[in-house]
């Protein structure tokens, strides 16, 4: 099984920083559309690839050219899986808003915001770790951790 092309790990971290700031700001000002909007943002990157994620593309085109090359590249599959988990949570939050359960909705969104902030500041990506754990159990092709 061939591995997908490696990516600059700073791209997903930038994406997670934007996600955390947007969701926390949305919660602060009770601006609910931020949840479905960022569900779609994550979905674009997770389903179609980093080129289609708006903030991943912004990083690749506008920010990365101004930075030094990364010390290490990473497998795109773990962050893509983490984005998928984020889509599920934000999708559920959107449904909770529609059903009138704003508390549950913001709770789910804040979980995503907290994990995104953690990933952006430390590189600890909980969704990626879940993927790596599952991958090690399956013993597939190479994945980094």
């Amino acid at each position, binding site marked *: 099984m061939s591995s997908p092309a490696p990516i600059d790990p700073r791209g997903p971290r930038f994406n997670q920083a934007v996600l955390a700031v947007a969701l*926390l700001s949305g*919660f*602060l000002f009770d601006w609910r559309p931020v949840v479905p909007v960022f569900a779609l943002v994550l979905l674009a990157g997770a389903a179609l690839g980093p080129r289609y994620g708006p903030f991943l593309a912004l990083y690749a085109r506008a920010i990365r050219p101004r930075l030094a*090359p990364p*010390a*290490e590249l990473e497998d795109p599959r773990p962050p893509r899986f983490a984005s998928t988990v984020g889509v599920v949570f934000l999708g559920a939050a959107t449904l909770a808003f529609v059903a009138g359960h704003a508390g549950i909705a913001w709770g789910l969104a804040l979980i995503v915001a907290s994990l995104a902030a953690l990933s952006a500041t*430390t590189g600890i990506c909980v969704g990626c770790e879940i993927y790596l754990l599952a991958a090690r159990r399956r013993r597939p092709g190479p994945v*980094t*951790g």
Partner: protein
Amino acid sequence: MFLARAVVVVVLLFAVALVTRLYRQWREGVRTDRPDHPAVPASLLAGAERTWVLFTTPYCATCGPVEARLRALDPTARVVKVDATREPHLADAFSIRSAPTALLADAAGRVQERLVGADAVEDYVIALR
């Protein structure tokens, strides 16, 4: 209501900052401490007096230069690369958290040095000059 939300946001950010700090302390400890390593397997030593065991990953951009640096440092030492993603049990046994990590083992497999990251290898090379 805004104030209550602001408090929640501040608490969350504080929690993230706390976890970040704890993570960095733990990471720094892993970088600088010498945990109780198990003996390096004889299959990696192949009878050499000194062996650098270099843990890498397929996407490690600095592992190639680090390997060349180690080979140039001591041509008599054996350098063996271990892909941590292919040998996860070996990586776990030696508490490998990032690549490159280089372990210097003696003939009996005892770990004498542990260098984490290209900078640590460079510092080690400079210190030996």
